[in-house]
């Protein structure tokens, strides 16, 4: 019996605009990947969910606020409780925060302006399903492109020692403690402002983002193989 490829879905909100880039990146590393519309359902065999970047509902209200209140949100919560992996990138991160899945808030950059550039990051925690292929403390380069990316901690909701996954090497948007990406307590949800899906090929500037997806791919592969082993032992 051969194990099938890990399966991923990209949630397309009205106004998402990095959905196609995320799909390309997922397929690039070997995921069996597809889009899921907000009126549709998360597949029962899905291992990884990506909430992509963009401007859901134009971000005319507080960023991510409208998208977080879509009916699909309850499916996303169930998926998370079952231990499924979720990556929220940029607007996807903002949506996860608005849903209350991740703590804190994302406010307008301290410059008041949209910033698009490649920045240096430090990998703070390599013991998550998304960062296994990095060294702790490793410096990597990923693009940022956001107007509302200043992460702020809210009343003790984030214990930054445990939850911070990526930090900016220098201040770019005024974020508390240079926080660029965080996880939930169970470490199966990653939210980050930088765009790993835009850094999977040297040709377009950097391939440091590739390992975010490879880590998740490998994590899913090994855990499903372990499950398979256990099942076999059980049968024997």
């Amino acid at each position, binding site marked *: 019996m051969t194990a099938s490829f890990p399966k991923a879905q990209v949630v397309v909100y009205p106004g998402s605009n990095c959905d196609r880039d995320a799909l390309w990146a997922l397929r690039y590393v070997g995921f069996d990947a597809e889009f899921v519309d907000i009126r549709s359902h998360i597949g029962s065999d899905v291992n990884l969910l990506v909430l992509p970047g963009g401007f859901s509902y134009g971000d005319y209200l507080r960023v991510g606020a409208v998208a977080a209140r879509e009916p699909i949100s309850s499916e996303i919560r169930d998926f998370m409780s079952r231990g499924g992996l979720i990556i929220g990138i940029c607007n996807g991160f903002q949506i996860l925060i608005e849903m209350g899945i991740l703590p804190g808030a994302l406010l307008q950059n301290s410059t008041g302006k949209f910033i698009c550039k490649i920045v240096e990051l430090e990998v703070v925690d390599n013991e998550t399903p998304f960062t296994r292929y990095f060294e702790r403390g490793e410096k990597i380069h990923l693009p940022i*492109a956001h107007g509302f990316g200043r992460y702020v901690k809210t009343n003790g909701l984030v214990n930054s020692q445990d939850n911070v996954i990526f930090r900016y090497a220098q201040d770019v948007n005024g974020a508390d403690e240079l926080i660029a990406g965080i996880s939930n307590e169970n470490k199966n949800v990653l939210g980050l402002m930088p765009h790993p899906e835009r850094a999977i090929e040297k040709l377009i500037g950097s391939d440091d983002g590739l390992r975010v997806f490879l880590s998740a791919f490998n994590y899913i592969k090994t855990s499903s193989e372990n499950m398979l082993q256990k099942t076999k032992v059980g049968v024997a």
Partner: protein
Amino acid sequence: MKYIDILERKLGRKVTKAEIEAFTVMWSEHCGYSHTKGYIRQLPRVGFGGNAGIVPLDDYHFIAFKVESHNHPSAIEPFNGAATGVGGIIRDILAMGARPTAILDSLHMDKVTEGIIDGISDYGNSIGVPTVGGELRISDYYKYNPLVNVMAVGVGRNEHLIPSTAQKPGQVIVIFGGATGRDGIHGASFASEDLTGEKATKLSIQVGDPFAEKMLIEAFLEMVEEGLVEGAQDLGAGGVLSATSELVAKANLGAIVHLDRMPLREPDMNPVEILISESQERMAVVTSVEKANRVIEIARRYLLFADIVVEVTETGRYVAKYNDGTVIDVPAKLLEESPEERTYGYRPVEMPKFNWIKFKNVDAHGVFERYDYMVGTDTVVRPGYGPAVIRVKSSSGYSLVIHSRADLGLQEPYWAAYITLLECVRKTLSVGARPLAITDGINYADPDVQPEGLAAQMKGLKDACEFANVPVASGNASLYNTYKGNGIPPTLVIGMIGKLENLNVPRPRKSAIYAIGFKDFKLERERLLWNEIERIAKAGYFIVSMHDFSTMSTLKQELQKIGLDMKVKSPKCEPVHQLIMVFGDVDTKLPKELIGYCN
């Protein structure tokens, strides 16, 4: 003769009030190209005549591209003026059946106007189309009349190429997108006169809704994918009137337009206002009666309004109705046949000795880092280096350049236009691409006061295109860039598309830096220079082709970001020269001088 007299003679009767409104729009300079169409006809052309220019990229894909100005609106209301400039040109590309893949902007202003930058940034970033390049020219000549020229590019599959016409009676036209309001009424006429004219009010400015535009892009591409779209036109200047009359007039057909079916943002609009409103984020789709419901269904799923507004007829008459009343009833062709102003001949003179007229040097990072230039993950060469290079995931790639030489235009428009095109060719070759075609953005002052300058500029463009063997695929003309009678320098903006066979684009590296070529200009040497640029790029050396080497702060900073420190003594040269900068010691027949190092 006054246009109203021409109109009455052609109609054979007195015009009605509604017809005056309609023809004021359709025969405005902005819609009708009265002063420029005679010149445009003389240009060598390719893939011309649709909403945007079309050139083949490979066996399966075409590129659609066009530059458009939004100068007048940006002068009065910088944010919305610039934002809707982006939105409008994006829909032109979309209407051809192509997914918009890149935006470039050419900005001429007296200082970095925050509203204009914010407008482009806010709109372009939201719709997920990367702004990959541009030019920023700062000079007091543009104090009252800033120039905002936006070029958009898209890539489509050959089987999805959509005609910009209806084909037969019995077809219907669905209009879908945002709701219609009073914004932009007489925007086309306002953009065709001096900024102190009576139409220069904020009511003439369109208001942008980038979320609606993003929904419109995805909805339209889904319709194209499903084979529902038989013809298309975006609603820009002239609104419903311009879009629907063009669709039928080009095919010698007629139309019955039901204005009462248009979804309104302001319910008390009168029929003529509905007809000519320039509300943004709307498209007209020609389809069959059977497919129309599916078109409407898709639009609504993308949270947009949609309805069957037009029936295509064989009568050749354009009839706009509101409930049972007729608003206008005129020959459709007549709306397109704006009177043509005379063109002037121009006999080129020898190139004068140009003086340096320097525009202010600003580091462009403060501008382009506010644009998302990476979304789409196809930006191979990003802003800061000069030409942009974009890949096509299932094919190779293409280069994009936008460039102008208003400093020369002030002194001699013929050679200014000529040199602008030659410099575009050099820039395209420098990244290893081969020029495919151009789009031209004519920005001019008052053609009635200074007709010769326009003639000289257009002749310069024509002669240069013929010299370089590069055709024109699309273009735009913005005239009457004047304030209290004082005008801008003749500013011809050229956008050039080049094709790359592979993506081995030369990259900067640690090396000695040489100036190669000539410090002055002789036309007979230009091909020699091109051959050398092509050969050096192919050999993998990074080339910088600029008109003014004294202002390299943007490049220097860009190199710093990838850990390179450029130290050069800027080569001294004439305002028009044949000099390039090459990173690395390459053999060449041309004069070569060591000018610095990159460490």
